[in-house]
């Protein structure tokens, strides 16, 4: 066969697309079905499926059309849609491009779900305090299908985050009639083993029918009664099962469940390291502050220059000492000056002049008294001399010297012969002496008588 006989995928797909687009029936189709695989994508085109008991068709509703609908489409909801059928070349899928959508009554399962939800909510199962997940679980039980993607996602995540935890899979039926009982059995089994920190119950996405076991009451109550914290991850994020509501934590995906169940080992080691560093830094900072405080105190001049504690006293003492000496010196000098002054005044009033004057005076008086004595005596002498000269002049002996003499007897002058007798001894006095004589004869002179 030549190569020209082979079509390209694009060419074939283009051809098929034209068949769809050109078909008059497929241009506008009125379709009834149940919404499936629906998760609301905010502000975007919506992708979902429409199905009935035997068939399923992919559907897309552009944003502009989706914004026009007046109800909130939900998974499992029966709807009436108007749209066209076309083929999306990139995937080769045909799908209905929904232009209008209306609800077509409510599904039976959905109703049952709503009823149970109300009942359990009234019992307080949902609002009851949730058990806290251990941060560092040692052993985690996982109840899910042995072959599904759930256990794989969990294993991958746990290995990545926290490979030291022991994961134990409790294989369970997660779909079908006996699934609920099996799940309950496994929950009890986990509890009985009494060695698990955390329980993850998971199932991949599916229709409401697929997820139904997780909406059954026995499962809800088993989860609620479970003493181990339970993480529930059933279906997609939009599929909220009763199990999700009653579990302690709900995870949107199995990966999220694993992330909730275990910490990141490296992060934790880092955290501990950080705590250690903080501890070290805090203590180091405290030591630094205390050291600074101490160093500051030690740096006080009191310790650096302790001599300043008494230097003031030294100066004061020197000052007083000096002043005392100066004051004493001043007292001494003042008294000495006073004394010298007094002494010089005393010397000035020494009575030496008076003494000398008096001495002269006395000498003069002595001279005078000597002179007076001599003069006095002289005068007396003169008088005596004068009298003696006069007496000498008047001496009767002087007359006798002219030849006169007189006679005396017994010192009596004899003036008359009559008084004489012969042989009488007499004395004859001459001027120049005396002579002794004896009377021989007496001759009296008459005439003279």
């Amino acid at each position, binding site marked *: 066969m030549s190569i020209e006989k082979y079509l390209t995928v694009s060419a074939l797909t283009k051809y098929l697309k034209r068949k769809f687009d050109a078909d008059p029936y497929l241009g506008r189709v009125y379709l009834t079905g149940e919404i499936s695989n629906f998760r609301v994508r905010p502000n975007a085109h919506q992708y979902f499926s429409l199905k009935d008991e035997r068939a399923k068709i992919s559907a897309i509703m552009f944003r502009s059309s989706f914004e026009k609908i007046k109800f909130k489409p939900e998974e499992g909801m029966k709807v009436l849609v108007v749209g066209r059928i076309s083929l999306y070349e990139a995937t080769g899928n045909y799908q209905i491009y929904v232009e209008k959508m209306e609800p077509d009554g409510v599904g039976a399962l959905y109703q049952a779900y709503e009823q149970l939800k109300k009942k359990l909510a009234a019992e307080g199962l949902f609002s009851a305090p949730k058990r806290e997940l251990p941060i*560092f679980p040692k052993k985690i039980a996982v109840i899910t299908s042995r072959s599904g993607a759930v256990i*794989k996602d969990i294993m991958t995540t746990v290995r990545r985050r926290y490979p030291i935890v022991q*994961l*134990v899979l*409790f*294989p369970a039926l997660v779909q079908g009639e006996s699934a609920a009982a099996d799940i309950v059995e496994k929950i009890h089994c986990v509890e009985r083993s009494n060695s698990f920190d955390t329980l993850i119950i998971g199932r991949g996405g599916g229709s409401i029918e697929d997820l139904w076991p997780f909406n059954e009451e026995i499962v809800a109550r088993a989860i609620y009664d479970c003493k181990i914290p339970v993480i529930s991850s059933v279906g997609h994020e939009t599929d909220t099962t009763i199990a999700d509501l009653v579990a302690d934590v709900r995870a949107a995906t199995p990966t999220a469940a694993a992330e909730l169940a275990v910490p990141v080992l490296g992060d934790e080691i880092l955290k*501990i390291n950080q705590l250690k560093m903080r501890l070290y830094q*805090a*203590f180091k900072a405290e030591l630094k*502050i205390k050291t600074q405080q101490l160093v500051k105190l030690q740096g006080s001049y009191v310790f650096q220059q302790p001599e300043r504690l008494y230097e003031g006293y030294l100066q004061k003492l020197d000052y007083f000492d000096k002043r005392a000496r100066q004051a004493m010196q001043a007292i001494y000098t003042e008294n000495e000056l006073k004394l010298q002054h007094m002494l010089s005044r005393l010397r000035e009033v020494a009575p030496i002049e008076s003494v000398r004057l008096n001495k002269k005076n006395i000498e003069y008086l002595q001279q005078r008294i000597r002179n007076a004595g001599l003069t006095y005596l002289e005068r007396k002498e003169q008088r005596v001399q004068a009298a003696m000269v006069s007496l000498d002049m008047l001496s009767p002996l002087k007359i006798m010297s002219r030849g006169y003499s007189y006679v005396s007897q017994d010192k009596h002058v004899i003036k008359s012969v009559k008084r004489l007798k012969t042989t009488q001894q007499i004395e004859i006095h001459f001027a120049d002496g005396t002579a002794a004589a004896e009377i021989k004869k007496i001759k009296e002179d008459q005439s003279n008588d």
Partner: protein
Amino acid sequence: MTDKPTFEENLTELEEIVQNLEKGDIPLEKSLEKFQRGMELSKELQFKLENAEKTLTRVMDQNGNEEKFERDEDNEK
């Protein structure tokens, strides 16, 4: 075994110690003790985390025995 503080309790104690020291209003002697205690704790905690063995996922069989889970072993290859 039950009396021994858990990893979490030890971690909590360590965190409290760190916060106490960071507040800084405890006497030096006390904070030295706390520092030493904190260091011991952190060592112990770190040791536990770093030295724990990596595990393989097991599966619980019908009889309540844990067995190797073949899918995990596959992943490791």
